[in-house]
């Protein structure tokens, strides 16, 4: 397909003989908000790791705006316009909230320009502070932030970089109900003018904010489509609820599921579109 922002083709990742991804195809168009779901061990985070250069694929291609991402260092991929967050948010605790954002915002400046001191707060950073709702805490060290606030700060650090593709890895994991609510609003707002891929476990969150969903299972794409259609798909229900005779796929662990595999999805089951 032409004009796709992200094209993943037949991507595979192998860890010590274990195939974490076994030929994943994924196409994301500009402006999309795509949810990526699947039981534990399905390969969601591995897929994001492989796209962002953290993990080396064993095979297949990742093309972003037509450019091959294979073999590029993490920071080069970021500079091409792919930003991500992590499940366990990592903000720089020794720096203030503003400094965290400012550092993220300055990443395109040449290194020699960084030797100048920061004067005030740029519009970009001020805007992000407003969007993520941390304006009051701007000058506090990021170390004092709560878990939810850290996730928002991380999202803010992404926004100021104006990436063309955002990958959010479980942004609401471990959040309270109120924090989820705010994160959902934040997500809606960001998705209005960004292309976003969200990994999420939380079904309630998914129902409220997702439109298009890709389901991963055992390193392959199981189903892809609008959220209602995906929810009603028997294969998805099977993966999430487990089959009566095997009970292992309930999401308890990733390992044993491997035994049930072959029968679950028809061969080459990634081609739905």
């Amino acid at each position, binding site marked *: 397909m032409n004009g796709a922002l992200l094209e993943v083709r037949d991507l595979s990742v192998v860890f010590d003989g274990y195939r974490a991804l076994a030929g994943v195809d994924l196409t994301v168009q500009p402006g999309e908000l795509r949810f990526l779901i699947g039981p534990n061990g399905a390969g969601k985070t591995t897929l994001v790791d492989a796209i962002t250069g953290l993990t080396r694929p064993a095979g297949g291609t990742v093309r972003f705006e037509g450019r091959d991402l294979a073999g590029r260092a993490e*920071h080069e991929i970021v500079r091409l316009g792919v*930003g991500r967050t992590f499940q366990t948010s990592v903000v*720089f605790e020794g720096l203030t909230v503003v400094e965290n954002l400012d550092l993220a915002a300055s990443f395109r400046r040449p*290194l020699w320009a*960084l030797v100048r*001191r920061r004067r005030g707060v740029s519009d970009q950073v001020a805007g992000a502070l407003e969007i993520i709702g941390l304006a009051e805490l701007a000058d506090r060290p990021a170390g004092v932030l*709560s878990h*939810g606030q850290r996730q928002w700060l991380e999202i803010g650090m992404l926004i100021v970089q104006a990436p063309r593709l955002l990958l959010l890895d479980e942004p609401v994991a471990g959040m309270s109900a*109120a924090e989820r609510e705010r994160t959902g609003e934040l997500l809606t*707002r960001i998705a209005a003018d960004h292309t976003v891929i969200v990994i999420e476990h939380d079904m309630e969150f998914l129902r409220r904010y997702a439109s298009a969903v890709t389901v991963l299972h055992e390193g392959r794409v199981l189903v892809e489509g609008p959220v209602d259609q995906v929810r009603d798909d028997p294969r998805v229900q099977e993966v999430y609820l487990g089959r009566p005779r095997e009970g292992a796929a309930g999401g308890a662990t990733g390992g044993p599921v491997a035994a049930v595999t072959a029968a679950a999805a028809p061969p080459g089951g990634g081609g739905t579109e």
Partner: protein
Amino acid sequence: MTATTPQTPATPATAPRFAAPPPAPPWWARLGGPAAFTAVALLALVAAPLLLEPFRLNLLAKYLCYAIVGLGIGLAWGQGGMLVIGQGVFFGLGGYAMGMYLKLHEAGGDLPDFMVWSGVERLPALWAPFASPAFSLVFAVAGPMALAGLLGTLVFRRRVRGAYFAILTQALAAATVILLVGRQGLTGGTNGLTNFFELFGQDLAADGTQRGLYLVVAVVLGVLYLGARQLLRSRFGRLLIAVRDGEDRVRFLGYDPATVKTLTFAVSAGMAGLAGALFVPVVGIISPALLGVVPSLELVVAVAVGGRFSLAGAILGAVVMGQARTTFSEQFADGWLYLQGALFIVVMTLAPRGLAGLAGTAREMWSSRRARA
């Protein structure tokens, strides 16, 4: 659907909320306000030369040379998280550059004395450029920076860090000593380079010259301190701290941590080189014993004692430990090594932020007590 919904009543109680962000100045600002800096500068530039006898002033100049190295260690280790335990290499490179110039000047066109004793008949090509004082001075800084830059590029790109990097710097120090000792005719071997009498036409033994040298060292240290402080307050400094605290995360901000670390390592090496070049006319000798593993480690210990997270602490540590060493060695010849080791252990376990950290804590307690009263 707008995201402007204000803080709903459901705002989690766990979220820390502060009515007004207290204007807490960063820790280095508390430690080195302009007033404190001016006071120290006056003390060093006016009081010390007037009050100290020449012998003591000369010793202080030596400590200040170490403090310049310490400043570089504070930058690389305290701020950048790179444990550099082989700074002696860069110190030595600067020192030998200066020593070679002084030696050639002394020889006045002939071969330096030790070469004659070693049976060397022609001046080695390596020595030739050091006949120029300008080249020697530039090399004293640029040489170490280039070496550190090369090492950093090779090592940090491969993501070697932590203890592995530390051991590498130490191995470099050990190898340098072996190299220097082995090439007697070229380097003066174990004895190093010594017997200097004149610097830029000034008699090195004269009190006036030594006082002048002391002032030069003090001013250089002050300028470098201010420069390093400025660097830390810049975005580069924030980036350096970010690299120290989360190198992998920095990559996903689109920065290459290897570049940041290499640059910082090179700056700290340049400081050590300059310190070495100043050290030689002050102390009158440069030899392998002054730049090997042990002296390199002693400086790291001094920085730890002074407080590695504070530039002022790093300087303080170098001066205090230098003075303590002299005082102790004058009283009990062998006691110093044990005391130094014990002090290091005590500081690392009880006060990891060193003297500077203790001073900061004391100030906080003082101000909170005053606030309560």
